[in-house]
């Protein structure tokens, strides 16, 4: 075991239909602190399932997930406590439509971290300023554009001071002209040293920001390497085919 790993999976498997469908098949991945790992692969390759099992939104069939030294797949571990340290951003934003932006961001720190309302709101406003949305703090999600929604979703997760951020295709549901503003926020986050695991189809982002790229295929890790290795000299045939079709 590598002590530098912030989060590590050991023989992670997720089966459906009594093992007939293997969404994840013995996945062993470690993510170091401060590292940006980008997961790519064809649709149905298990990359979203992999990401969603890191905070147990998908319950793995077998295998272990070690987060900050704790085996979170153990029944006795308090998954709610660990999730507070793992921010998650979804493809479809999943903002709470009945709360305004500020409330969306502060409800979790106030209720879970016992932050005072004032402290939480100051933190939220500070984060909103950094993503250029300070003037939208009182808006409801239905009044925001897709790009704005996703930026709010990112800072909502950041409000909990997470140790790692999980991104599940954060730009896939956006209009093309809004992809850039969300990627910029993610790039800044990476620059500040945030540990990130991103499932994405943005190969440009993977090349520019990724420290490591993981290619997944049929529930297995097909290839792991630096962006340079993967994009210019892929070893695996499936990786080559995939990259040819998307680049």
């Amino acid at each position, binding site marked *: 075991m590598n002590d530098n790993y912030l989060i590590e999976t050991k023989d992670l498997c997720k089966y459906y239909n009594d093992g007939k469908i293997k969404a994840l098949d013995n996945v062993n991945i470690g993510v170091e602190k401060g590292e940006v790992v980008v997961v790519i692969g064809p649709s149905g390759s298990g990359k979203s399932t992999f990401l969603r099992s890191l*905070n147990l*939104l998908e*319950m793995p069939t077998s295998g272990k997930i070690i987060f900050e030294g704790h085996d979170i797949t153990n*029944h006795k571990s308090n998954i*709610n*406590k660990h*999730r*507070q340290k*793992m*921010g*998650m951003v*979804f493809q*479809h934003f*999943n*903002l*709470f*439509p*009945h709360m305004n932006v500020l409330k969306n961001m502060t*409800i*979790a720190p106030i*209720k*879970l971290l016992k932050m005072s309302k004032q402290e939480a709101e100051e933190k939220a406003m500070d984060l909103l300023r950094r993503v250029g949305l300070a003037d939208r703090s009182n808006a*409801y999600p*239905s*009044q925001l554009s897709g790009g704005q929604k996703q930026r709010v979703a990112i800072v*909502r*997760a950041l409000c*909990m001071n997470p140790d790692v951020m999980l991104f599940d295709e954060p730009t896939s549901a956006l209009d093309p002209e809004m992809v850039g503003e969300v990627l910029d926020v993610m790039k800044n986050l990476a620059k500040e040293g945030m540990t990130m695991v991103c499932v994405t189809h943005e190969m440009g982002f993977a090349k520019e920001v990724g420290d490591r790229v993981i290619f997944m295929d049929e529930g297995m890790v097909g290839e792991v390497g630096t962006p340079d290795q993967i994009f210019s000299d892929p070893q695996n045939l499936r990786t080559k085919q995939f990259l040819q079709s998307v680049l």
Partner: protein
Amino acid sequence: MQEWFLDQKDKFYLNFIKDDRWRYLWDGLGVTLQITFFAVLIGIAIGMVIAAIKSTHDKTIDSIRIKILKYFLKFLNFLCNIYLTIIRGTPVVVQLMIAYYIIFQSSNNKVTIAILAFGINSGAYVAEIIRSGIMSIDAGQTEAGRSLGFNYIQTMFYIVIPQAFKNVLPALANEFIVLLKETSVSGYIALQDLTKGGDIIRGRTFDAFMPLFAVAVIYLIMVIFFTKLVNILERRLRKSER
């Protein structure tokens, strides 16, 4: 024309004024409102518990890792299903009579028995309304709540239920209107509610038109008033989203 008018005046006097017959309607209205009000409270209480059990079962049964908990929840869900099947599968009048003549045979507190019978009946419908509201909220909302670190119950209370409530308000209001009108069968256990009151007047005066129309108009006014109230509430809730 004038003759007809005088005739109506006489009938009005006969049906409502003479021997203080309006009191049958007035007292009956009191009983109807009393039964409806408390039955609604019982219905909501039962409905929320059943909906909570059933939707928790549907949403989480596959991810529960502790065996005993899993079987316990399955058992509770089974009990809820029996309750829903029986209550929704039999007429409310029959349930009312079973409650009065069989289950609470020894008691003569008709109003309380009616409240219990209608409350237990309404609970089944309220449960399904609330459950459909909870299930209608996108799974992404639950996932977002859980990913922030909220536990299942917190996620329900802060995120899912407020949205579900807004969605089911019209259906819930409809259920209460139905309940208000359904209490008109209370006469089957010789309870003098509004409908029975009108019927008693009819029996005394041998004039069906006036007392029965009066009863109908009173129900109608109550329903219109309640509908208005719900509309105001609905609009206020919607406002928070715009």
